[in-house]
């Protein structure tokens, strides 16, 4: 493989990592509070607002049930509004964030719901406000599960980021489609796949390790 192609792969990997890291951060920024709210706003819960909960649930489900490639195309006007263009890695961050945020919200909701309800009552018994309960009890107690949820979201985002390559999003997917598929360069396709596999493995391994370190339910000594 020529030196040019190798530098192409390095550049595309950088683009992919940029898209995924920015999109994952933004999606967490939106998804975490939405997830916490979904987990605590049913009847009788901390921030009880059943109708808001139901409405938000419908929006989240609608976004999640739209196939990603359709979502990317459908929101092009919105992407232009935010990024000024609909082509390139920066523009791809918009659909990636919109797709990942509801996914993260559902994962966060599940993680928070796993926290023992007795702990909420305990904190309430010594006068904790709902916000204190979220910040001092729910999130710290769910942290190992939240780390695993974010790991899963980042892995999914790596897959999505390759998909935006099909519509001019840049990154590894773009490289694979344009060189590997359209120019019939199987070695390029293989290289892209190998890089993606290595990235996914690294993210998963790091996430598993961190979650295990944070999990104090296991004995360490």
């Amino acid at each position, binding site marked *: 493989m020529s030196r040019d192609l190798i530098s192409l792969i390095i550049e595309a990997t950088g683009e992919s990592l940029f898209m995924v890291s920015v999109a994952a951060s933004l999606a967490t920024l939106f998804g975490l509070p939405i997830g916490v709210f979904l987990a605590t706003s049913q009847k009788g819960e901390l921030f009880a607002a059943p109708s808001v909960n139901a409405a938000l649930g419908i929006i989240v489900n609608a976004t999640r049930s739209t196939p990603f490639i359709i979502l990317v195309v459908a929101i092009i006007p919105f992407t232009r509004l935010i990024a000024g263009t609909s082509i390139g890695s920066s523009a791809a961050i918009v659909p990636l964030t919109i797709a990942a945020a509801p996914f993260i919200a559902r994962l966060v909701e599940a993680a928070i719901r796993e926290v023992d309800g007795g702990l909420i009552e305990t904190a309430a*018994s010594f006068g904790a406000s709902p916000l204190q309960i979220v910040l001092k009890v729910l999130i710290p107690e769910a942290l190992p599960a939240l780390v695993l949820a974010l790991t899963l979201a980042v892995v999914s985002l790596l897959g999505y980021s390759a998909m935006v390559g099909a519509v001019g999003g840049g990154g590894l997917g773009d490289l694979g489609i344009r060189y590997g598929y359209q120019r019939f360069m199987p070695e390029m396709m293989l290289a892209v796949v190998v890089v993606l596999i290595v990235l996914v493995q690294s993210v998963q391994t790091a996430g598993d390790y961190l979650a295990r370190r944070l999990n104090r339910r296991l004995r360490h000594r």
Partner: protein
Amino acid sequence: MFCDTLFVSCKIGISQVNAHQTITLAEPVLAPASIAPGGTEEISKVRFERVAKSYPAYRDKPSVQALQDIDFGVPRGSITGVIGRSGAGKSSLVRLINGLEKPTAGRVIVDGQDISALSGKDLRLAQHSIGMIFQHFNLLSSRTAADNIALPLEIAGWSKTEIAIRVSELLELVGIGDKYDRYPSELSGGQKQRVGIARALATRPTVLLSDEATSALDPQTTRSILDLLASINRELGVTIVLITHEMSVVRQLAKEVVVIDAGLVVERGHVADIFTQPKHEITQKFLAEVLGDSVSVSLARRLEQRPIPSGQAVVRVQLRGTDAGDTVASRVARELGIDVALLAARVDEIGGQHVGSLTLGIPGDETAHRRVLSWLSQYPIPVEHLGYVA
């Protein structure tokens, strides 16, 4: 902070923060009832005034009347046991005291303040003076013992230095000074409950609520936790309300008992009175559990309803604090010249009174049996003729 005029000082050596320093530690003291202004109203630390609590129907669950007509006071500085079976309404009752639940009717007064009328910030402030411990400890698995104890202090807005000092005091108080950096997963059940107790006492509450705090512990650990609660009550003057389904817990710790069944207070009074003169059927059943009033399986199997030649008549004598009961076996032997056999016995000292039961085997023919029974009947002690054994 530590020299608040409301508190007296006591000295406890601190091992974590300042190994060689002695820190003046303030704890609330029991205000003697005699100096409390006003009448009986002021003697009660917690007062239920015609309280009812019902839960509305929700989804597939019908509405539930959990408590009704609850009207009693918890004396200041007392240890009051609330006993009842599962579903009797104990949990709801204790949660009304710290405002986790709101009564549907009536008022709950804590320290002269209507806690049932408080909400938001006022309620949260009042909750700082009411601690609570739980059956399953409810410790945060993500925090060490010390950090678990620090949680209510963080919530109450204490500074980091104040928290560090207070946490060390509390770890010493509950006897787990060396476990400060251990996570709950590394602690035994008894140690976890000690952390729970330290956490409940962190903000210097004057009321401690115990929700089946020893139900998940083995008998020996239960004993040590109950001893700790007793010393907290004695030394810090904290009023303790403990709910339990075990009469043995009430016997070991409480001075006052409230028996509830199906949402109603069916009986209440001093422990000694309840144990010696139980009136309600539920109370008697609870007593039977601890006093061994039920006949052992092997004895029950051998019991016959008709006299057996050269057998024994089986008689059970209840000891209920009357002097007559204590010496009954030896006096039958001495005064009637009949050697009675002791088949089963269980005697406890409760509130300074002997409480329990003796199961006696009376040898001889029916005349002898009748003599013993009529001799026993001259004393105010309950006697049951259970049957005969060979």
